[in-house]
Every structure is written in structure tokens, then in C-alpha cells.
């Protein structure tokens, strides 16, 4: 880790966004991860996306569990709320936070160990409930913090740094999310910010559970020749099947897209996701087709990336439960607790 802090001085042309902040205002502490870690690039993508969306940091809650990935919320949005939970338990904390204050922009950052091993059950239920949360799984295929054992997402046949071959089947977070009914499923690569930043923006604007699996190479333990999650391997094998452009409600769509290969999805807040490069046999709003397409590509040794599935009619946890539209924490006490007379009335209904 560096001994010096990132100097505050910036490029003279640095722009301010609609809320008067520069990109540098969305930074956090200097990273203590290994130099070259993919997670740091994802951090930079978060900073860029939040800045471009004009979100005031104090309206954001960052949640994480344990692991290299879960350290990263410290490295962006230093003025946002944060909760670093017990290993694998971030989805529960996020569910609670989302219930208490649905006005917060929620972002959960986790890794393949935190999400697919110790926290697998937690993740499944958060997806099932459609908690209004952007969940980013920083996926490097190893337990970096404990020196490079295979994680649950390590591909069979890939090797450890010392050369051991992984014999177990991998859990693919994207396929799992699709089967559990996730309403927004994407995959990206830390080394491709042009793809990742619009995905994060779309995920933050999506109402419901937005799942992004980001392949994020571990330079220290999983960037070698036998790895399937190295920079070189990912660059060679990733195939962007859908390119997602994100347009904010007040913005005009200026990009020209080739006809018949584009699909537009309007989100709850009026922003628009334009999906392009969509092949004729692929419909990103068809869950089953998405599932099989990803499987087919996987069989050919290719990793599908982009916004793979989006449900245009997502209903998040709070709306499913018919909660009041405002944040619960901010309700007057007599509404939150109508008194014992109301309780009696309620109980009468069950007698």
C-alpha cells in the first residue's frame, strides 16, 4: 500500500456535475488492496457512475461483508452511509436498511466467497425478495485474503498459482440469479469501464434487485496462465452479447443505433436503457432464452457479458408489501404505531 494519500489537487479542467460536485468528491480512502487489483477499477467505475448520475453521496448506503471486495466501499463515496457486516450477511442487513429507508440509494459490494460460499443462502433470498439494491459481486475465483484457495466460482480445470487443478464444478452467479427470479442480471469485467459504468448506472436506477457479476482479476493469486479469471483470459474469452447504454430521464438519446438490433427499456424513474448488439435469437427480456444463450456460449468457452436480462415490470420488496411510498424511518410515530385500540381491532379480525 502507498504511504502517501492521493493528493487533492486535480486537473484544471475537472468538471462539476448537477449537484456541484467533481468526480474527486466521490472518492474515498486510498486503496490498501494489492497494486493492480481488479476491485480498484470497479471502485473507479462506481465513482464515475455516481458522479454521472448526480447522486449526492449522503443519499447512498454502501453495504458489504468480508473479503477483499468487501473492503472496497471504504474507497469510494467517503460521505455516504456504510455498513460492513458479518461474513456473508450483507443481504440481510441490506434488506433491513432498504425496509427502514427506501429513499436511500443502496449498493452492496461482495465477493465470490462472501456471496457464493458463506453467504449463498442470504444472497438467494435477497434476490427472491427483489430488495431494491444494486448488488455487485466482485468475482476473482479465489480467496485472496486467505492466500489464494479456489473459491466457489473457480472454473473446473483452472489451476491455482502453484499449479493444483480445481476439480469441482463452479457456481455461476449469473445463472443462479436468473433461476431465482432476479429482475436485473448483468456480467462485466473490471478492465472494461466503457461497459461497466453504464451497467452500474442502470443497476442503480433499476427498482429492485440488480445483480452484476464483475470478473475482477486477483493480480496476486489468480492472474497466471492456468487461470480463467486473469486479465489476459478474460480479454480473450469475454463476449459482449449486449451493450447497454444508459440515458438519464432529462437527457436526450443522441446515439444512433443500427435497426433491428436495438431494444429500449424504460426504468421506473424515467431513465432509459438502450440495449444494442442484440442478436436475432436473443431477447434480454426473455429469462429462459437468456439462460440458454449464456449456457450455449459457456459451452463454447466464451463468457457472455453485458446486461443479460432485465425485467421491465419489476416490483420491488417494498411495493410487494404495499409499504407507504415514503421512508419508514421518517413516518410520524402515530402512523408507525396506531395505538392499542387499532391493535385490538386488528386482533378481532382473527378471532
Amino acid at each position: 500500500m502507498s504511504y502517501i494519500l492521493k493528493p487533492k489537487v486535480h486537473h484544471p479542467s475537472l468538471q462539476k456535475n448537477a449537484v456541484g460536485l467533481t468526480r474527486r468528491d466521490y472518492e474515498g480512502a486510498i486503496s490498501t488492496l494489492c497494486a493492480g487489483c481488479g476491485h480498484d477499477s470497479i471502485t473507479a467505475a462506481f465513482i464515475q457512475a455516481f458522479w454521472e448520475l448526480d447522486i449526492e453521496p449522503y443519499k447512498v448506503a454502501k453495504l458489504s461483508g468480508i473479503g477483499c471486495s468487501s473492503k472496497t466501499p471504504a474507497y469510494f463515496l467517503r460521505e455516504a452511509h456504510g455498513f460492513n457486516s458479518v461474513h456473508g450477511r450483507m443481504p440481510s442487513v441490506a434488506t433491513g436498511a432498504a425496509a427502514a429507508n427506501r429513499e436511500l440509494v443502496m449498493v452492496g459490494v461482495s465477493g465470490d466467497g462472501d456471496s457464493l460460499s458463506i453467504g449463498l443462502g442470504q444472497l438467494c433470498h435477497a434476490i427472491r425478495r427483489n430488495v431494491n439494491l444494486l448488488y455487485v459481486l466482485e468475482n476473482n475465483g479465489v480467496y485472496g485474503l486467505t492466500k489464494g484457495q479456489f473459491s466457489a466460482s473457480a472454473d473446473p480445470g483452472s489451476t491455482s498459482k502453484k499449479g493444483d487443478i480445481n476439480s469441482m464444478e463452479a457456481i455461476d452467479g449469473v445463472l443462479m440469479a436468473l433461476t431465482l427470479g432476479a429482475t436485473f442480471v448483468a456480467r462485466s469485467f473490471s478492465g472494461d469501464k466503457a461497459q461497466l459504468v453504464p451497467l452500474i448506472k442502470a443497476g442503480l436506477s433499476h427498482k429492485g434487485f440488480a445483480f452484476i457479476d464483475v470478473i475482477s482479476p486477483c493480480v496476486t493469486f489468480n492472474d497466471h496462465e492456468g487461470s480463467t479469471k486473469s486479465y489476459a483470459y478474460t480479454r480473450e474469452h469475454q463476449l459482449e452479447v449486449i451493450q447497454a447504454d444508459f440515458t438519464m430521464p432529462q437527457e436526450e438519446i443522441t446515439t444512433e443505433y443500427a435497426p433491428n438490433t436495438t431494444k429500449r427499456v424504460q426504468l421506473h424513474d424515467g431513465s432509459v436503457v438502450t440495449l444494442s448488439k442484440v442478436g436475432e435469437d436473443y431477447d434480454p427480456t426473455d429469462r429462459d432464452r437468456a439462460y440458454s444463450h449464456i449456457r450455449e456460449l459457456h459451452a463454447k468457452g466464451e463468457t457472455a457479458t453485458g446486461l443479460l436480462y432485465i425485467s421491465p415490470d419489476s416490483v420491488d420488496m417494498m411495493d410487494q408489501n404495499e409499504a407507504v411510498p415514503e421512508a419508514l424511518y421518517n413516518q410520524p410515530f402515530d402512523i408507525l404505531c396506531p395505538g392499542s385500540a387499532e391493535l385490538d381491532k386488528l386482533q378481532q379480525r382473527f378471532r
Partner: protein
Amino acid sequence: MLRTDVENPDYFHKVVDCQWACPAHTNVPEYIRLIAQGRYDDAYIVNRHSNVFPGILGRTCDRPCEPACRRSRLDEKPVAICRLKRVAADHKSDIKDRIPKSPATKNGKKIALVGAGPSALTVANDLMPLGYECTIFEKGPQAGGLMRINIPSFRLPAEVLDEEIGYIIDMGVEVKYNTPVDSLKELLDSEVYDAVFVGSGAPKGKELVLPGRYDSDQIFIGIEWLESIHFGHISSVGEKVLIIGVGNTAMDCCRSSKRLGAKDVKVIARKTRKYFKASPWELEDAEEEQVEIRENLSPVQFVYENGKLVGMEFEEFHSQEIDGKLVQEPIGKVTIPCDTVILAIGQDNAFPWIERNIGLEFGKWDMPVVDKTTFMSTQEGVFFGGDAAFGPLNIIWAVEQGHQAAISIHNYCSGRPVGDRPLSSINLTSTKMGLHEWSYSNNYDPSKRQKMRHIELKQRFSNMTTEVEEGFTEEQVKTEVERCLNCDVQTHFTDSQCIECDACIDICPVDCLTITQPGEEPELRTRLTAPATQYDQALFVSGGLKQTGRVMVKDENVCLHCGLCAERCPTFAWDMRKFVINLPLAGDPGAQRQPVTAGVGA
């Protein structure tokens, strides 16, 4: 854009903005680091190698380095490079042993130098250690040229001049004082000297012939007036003084007037402040001394009452900027009362002592025809330098021209073509000390530029010799040295090691770096992390990177040289390497390679 050739000495040299801008290419970051370490002697010697007069220049230099300083593009004000030079000179110990000496056995070549100003002294400084015997012909009683007679001693004390000129003369230079050269022909015909160097300056102040010019003894020409003060011929001035012109000589004149007892001193400028020739800091110093600067006035005539000069009449203008050009319209006439007028509107060269029929060609404006590289005139063996070569410039230019002329004279006397210039070479050494440790102070210090302390006005005006600037305090030095960005510690990139992880791009505080598709420079400049609109600052472009074929691009413009890109680089593709350029002086062998003719960068 092709891959940037960082082996070209110019590429990294240009990144060291101060050193590149300095006519003598003083290694500024190196001496600032030495000062930071308290190694004042070493800092002085580094300076002296390039600019010969660190103590003098540390007080009087026109500082082309400071407007170039990268810090001023980030933080408004540049590092106080000039005054740090003075720190090295003020705090050094006895460094006589480290001054080059003339060998006991001479090489048998004799050089005549005309004038004992900065250019001729530099020639002597470079040639004496090689065994030449140098003779300076000086028309006055002391050495130093304009540095001594035109720069008032409240800016440049005589002791400083004596010391630094002494280092050169004490090598064994023969100086013939009070010996003006009246005829170049005679000097050449004497056949005593193997080469002649003319460093006689631009000693003639420009005249302003207007009605009434010659009807008073209270109208002076600036540089002559300053010279008269220096020699004690003038010790008083009228109560109300007008200085015509707004260059650095005008600043010296108005401030000298204050010390001679003038109560009301006005400097008259034809144009607006933006166009003033004086350095901004000299204007500030004059205004601090309650000198009034009046713009938009053009002299018409001197006004007399009963035969006594009582004022000067001016045409007044209304000025406005239209399309970046100054447009002035006359709005009437004003008369400003005065007792004394000093004309400081520029200097001319004068060579009445050079015969026009000896084969030495004169060109435009009656200036000798001098080669811009070799400084040789059309008369073989006669060289020019300083203000005598191309008209009035600053001391630091005179020094560099002296260095170049000395190389030519050495070539000439050794039977080599004068145009045979020794080649520069570069050296790059990693500053890596540990995983994230460097052998230089890489952290950015946000401190503001330190303000020079000045002595009180009352004390200043009491005489001509009290130095105004007190120098930096120890605390100020400590702060100011840390403002230097160490631009000579270069960001060095090895294409083949890059894995395109983006770590350097994400960490760079000033958005210098981009990995992108290759392209032509004008187009490439528009699609970088931050727009690269400072076109005089180079782009570094790598070769194709192995994973994607894209290129690494660095805009050198506002790089802090903080080393964070190299700290966050997992493969050491980025390294912080200290750059040293060896610029040969007379007698240095120079590098053995083909001269580089391609442009800077790629």
C-alpha cells in the same frame, strides 16, 4: 502517432519545464533537492556549472524558468526557483576548492575578450581550465559590465558581484581595466590572439528627440543615469521625477530616484499593463515603494516655464482590447509636472570601434552578422556573445551564449570546424527504494508560494546600497523546496510489461493517463481521460499493448510526478526514473551517437 522515442534527449528534457526554459539549462529540480537536504555547497556547484553566477542570478535573473514551472499550471504560482538559487549562494561554505583551476601548463592559445560582462566572463570561465590564456579589455575600472553599473546595488550588492566574478578572474585571467578597445583591426593585426570574443554589450540608451529635449540638464537617459549613480557622479534628483518607459531599466530608475530623495515618482507607459516589458515582480517591487505607474500616455513635448523644466506634455489614450488586440484612441492632452525626466525606452548596440572594411559583415539595424549556433561572425576567429550578439537580452542568455561561444572558440583553436558541436546524452536511473518508496520526496505539498521578506521602506530609502530583499527564512526554505514537483523524476513506461489493469489510470490525481485505441495526435488529444489542450506539452504514446493492441497515452501537462501510477502498477511497467541530461561545455567530449534530428516526442 508513433511510439514516443524517450531515448531522444529532448523528450524527457522538455518534461523538466524549468530546465528546458532556462537558456543555460540549469538542473533546477536537482539543486532544489540538494537545498532540501541542506547541501548548499552542492546546490551551488550544480547551479554554477550551468549558469556561472548563482548569487547574481538568484537576485536578478529574468527567470524564464518560473512562468514555465509546471506548478503554476496547478497551483497558480510557480516554485520560487530564482530565490532558491540565492539560498544556495547565501548559505554555502567556502567553495573555492571546487572551482575549476587553470592548469600550470598552458595550451599556448591566447584569447582576447572585449568587455568584462557576463558573456565574456563565461567564456573565460570555460576556457581557462582548458589551458587558454584569456585577456579581457574592459573600458571601466571594474569587471561585471551591466551587472555592476546598470543594476542598482539595492538589488545586487557589490560583494556578491565581487565574489562570483572573482572566482573566474582568480583562475588567472588578465584583465586590462580602463582599456577600451578603439579598433578591432588593431587588435586583430597585433596577431597576439588566436581568437577574439566580443562581449561589449548594448551600451547605448535610446534617445527620445521631442521639442525641448536639449533645453534642460534634468533630462537623462536611463542606463547612463544609473551608471552615473554607480560612479557617484549623481547623488541627487528633482522632487518630482518622470520615468518614460516601463521596462526593467525603468524600474531600476524609479526605485533609484526614491533613494536619491525624490518625493513623487511616476512611470509613464504608452500601453496598458498587459504589455509592460518589466517583469511582474519588478513592477510589484516598484509599486510597493510608492511609485505610481500611469498607463496610456505618449510623450509629446517637454514643458518649460522661465527656462526651467516644469513638466511634460502627453497625449492620453483610451484603450480597449478588441479581438485580443490593443486599440488606442487619443482623448486629449495632459501635462504632468516634473523636475526631472529619465528616458528608459530601450537600448541599442553600438560598434563604432569595429571597422567596416575588415571583412566583418554588418546586417540589419547595423548589427554584426553572427551565426546563431556558433556565435562566430563572418570574420573567422571573431566571436560575439551577450547583448553584443543579438541585442539586449537578459544575463542568463549572455551566460549561455558565452558557453556556446567557448565551445566554438575551443573548436576553432583546435583546428576543428566551429559547427562541430559535442552531443548531449541522457541518463535514466530508477528511484525505487522499496515496494512503495522512492529516493525523492514524492508527496504533493499543497503549500502556497512563500513571499520574499523586504526591509522597511524608511530603511530602504536611506541609501543606495541597502539590499531590499532579505532572503528566505529557514522555515520558508523548508516549505518552498517541497513545492517542487521533481519533474526530472520521469514516469517511465515499459510497454511489454503492461497488463492493462487500469490501476495507474484510476489512481492518477490529475487524470494524465489513458489506455485507448491508437490515433493521430490532434484527434487523440480529444479523447483522453482529461482533454489535452495544452498543445506545447507533449503526449507520451506507448507501442501497442500486448493484450488488446491499445496504447498507453500520457499527457505530460500537469503530471505531479507523485509516483502513484508506479506504486499502483503490479508489473513495474511504470517506474519513476531520475533523468539527467549531460549538456557538454567547452572541452567536454560529448556523447558518441548520431545527432537526433526528428521532432520532440513522436
